[in-house]
Each structure stands twice: as structure tokens, then as C-alpha cells.
């Protein structure tokens, strides 16, 4: 099987079908990353399509100093930011999301199941921490790969991940509705909805 670099060379030599082979390797990863930011699969599809077309048009500038996937990731991230900057400043928060916990949140989480609470808390993480956390836990990337994608040193990627996890732990521990830390976490008002999540999941 050809490596990404070999396929890229094939594309540069005029073989457009080699680009499809590259897409197949990376498009699902890109879609997952972008949909976690947009919360809208149709918008994510549009953004990733745009990303891949841009990547094809600028492929001659890719020199392989970073992995092709991390190069695509950077384009996808910028395309997402630009898209939402144009359409709405409120729909997405990929920057400066270090929100303080206010009194309303505590009351709000009482009505949500565990998955929703976690999703909500992950959304509130500062952008870099959220990036590190999702790439590590959802995509199972190594910290070396995460560092490449975040364009930062290895230790910074790891520190962002640690802070994200610590922040989530603190926020969940501070949640009055969380009864126990156990394999099946229970919230005081939502045991039923958590069980439902297990069935759906």
C-alpha cells in the first residue's frame, strides 16, 4: 500500500485518482473533528469538502514536513473558523471559551443526562484544551500527533490535555446532582435518562 507521500507525489504527477485514495484515508477523521465543532453534520460535510478541494489546489505546497493528516486538519480548522465567522459569531466557539460556571448551570444540569452534561462541559473548555482532549480521547491520537495538529510542542499538547481532564473533574465534582463516581454514573433526577443512553448507545 502506498504511503500518503507516495500518493501525493502521484497526484503531483497528474494522477487525480490518487487524491481519492488520500481522501478515503482522512475524510472520516476530518468529518468527526469538524462535526464536533459545528454540531451539524451537513455543515461539517460542506466544510470538509471545501477543505479537501483547497488541499488539492494547494497540494504543490505540501512538502511533508508534518503529516498530511495534520496539514488537512489545520486547513479544516481554519475553514471552520472562517465559515462561522462569516455566518454567525454565536453559533460556534472555537476560541476563548474559558467560561466561568454560573449559578444557572447547576440547576440546568439536573435535567440532563450524563452524556449531555459531559458534552456541555467539554464545550466550555478553552479551545486548546478541548482540542487536545477530543483528539486524544475520541480519536486516540498520540501526543506527538496531537502536537503536530495543534502546531505546538509535545509538552504543551500534553499539558492542555491534563488541564482539560482536571477541569472536567472539578466541574463534575462540583455538580450537586452527581451522586457517585461509579461505572454507571447516576444523577439525582436522571437515572432513567442515563439508562436510556446506555440502550441508545
Amino acid at each position, binding site marked *: 500500500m502506498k504511503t500518503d507521500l507516495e500518493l501525493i507525489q502521484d497526484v503531483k504527477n497528474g494522477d487525480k485518482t490518487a487524491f481519492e485514495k488520500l481522501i478515503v484515508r482522512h475524510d472520516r477523521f476530518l468529518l*468527526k473533528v469538524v462535526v464536533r465543532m459545528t454540531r451539524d453534520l451537513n455543515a*461539517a460535510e460542506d466544510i470538509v469538502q471545501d477543505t479537501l*478541494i483547497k488541499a488539492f489546489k494547494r497540494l504543490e*505546497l505540501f512538502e511533508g514536513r508534518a503529516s498530511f493528516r495534520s496539514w488537512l486538519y489545520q486547513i479544516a480548522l*481554519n475553514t471552520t473558523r472562517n465559515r462561522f465567522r462569516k455566518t454567525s459569531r454565536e453559533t460556534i466557539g472555537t476560541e476563548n471559551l474559558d467560561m466561568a460556571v454560573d449559578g444557572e448551570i447547576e440547576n440546568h444540569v439536573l435535567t440532563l443526562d450524563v452524556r449531555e452534561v459531559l458534552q456541555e462541559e467539554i464545550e466550555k473548555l478553552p479551545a486548546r484544551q478541548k482540542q487536545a482532549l477530543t483528539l486524544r480521547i475520541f480519536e486516540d491520537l498520540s501526543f506527538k500527533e496531537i502536537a503536530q495538529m495543534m502546531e505546538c510542542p509535545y509538552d504543551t499538547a*500534553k499539558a492542555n*490535555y491534563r488541564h482539560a481532564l482536571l477541569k472536567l473533574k472539578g466541574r463534575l465534582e462540583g455538580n450537586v446532582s452527581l451522586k457517585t463516581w461509579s461505572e454507571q454514573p447516576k444523577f439525582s433526577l436522571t437515572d432513567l435518562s442515563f439508562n436510556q443512553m446506555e440502550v441508545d448507545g
Partner: protein
Amino acid sequence: METITECDWWWIDFLEDELEASLEKDIELLLEKSQEDRDNFETFRLLRKWVKESDSVNEAEIEAHAVRMRAGVMEAIAKEEPIKVGKTKDWKNWNREISPAL
């Protein structure tokens, strides 16, 4: 703001298989001797597990969209000129050029 102790970092690194080898003996000792440390480690382990399970991404939906998207990309690039090889533009900044808001 979270209170960070060195131990918290150790547990996280231990979970991620990133702990310095020189600390492994200390960690094993803590887990063996201290219920509080065992609880703390368990908290991080469960938190990681819950986060993983909270992912809203549906693989089947992603696959369906990926298939459709690939067709769209290939259709779009079929109309493109062949790539010009040999440009010497500053590759590091190209992404900023097309996405100036970085």
C-alpha cells in the same frame, strides 16, 4: 479554576501510558498503600471512560456523509487544471493566505 496537584498529573499520565519510568514504582506503592489514591486514580479512569462514551459522533452517519462528500470533491477537482509542480512559494504561510483569520 481547578486545583492541580502533582499527583493528579501522575494519575493522568499513568492512564495515558505517559508516566516517566522513574515514577512507576512510586505510583504502584501509592495504589497499594493508599485508599485515597486508589479512589483518586479510579476517578480519573472513570472520567476518561465517560468522556469517551459521551462522544455524539455516529460512525454510520459519518460514513454516509463521507461517501457523498468524496463524490463531490472528485467532481470538483475533475474540473481543475493539473497541479503545477515546482512552485517555490513560502509553504509555511500558504494556509494563512487562504485562511487569513488564523
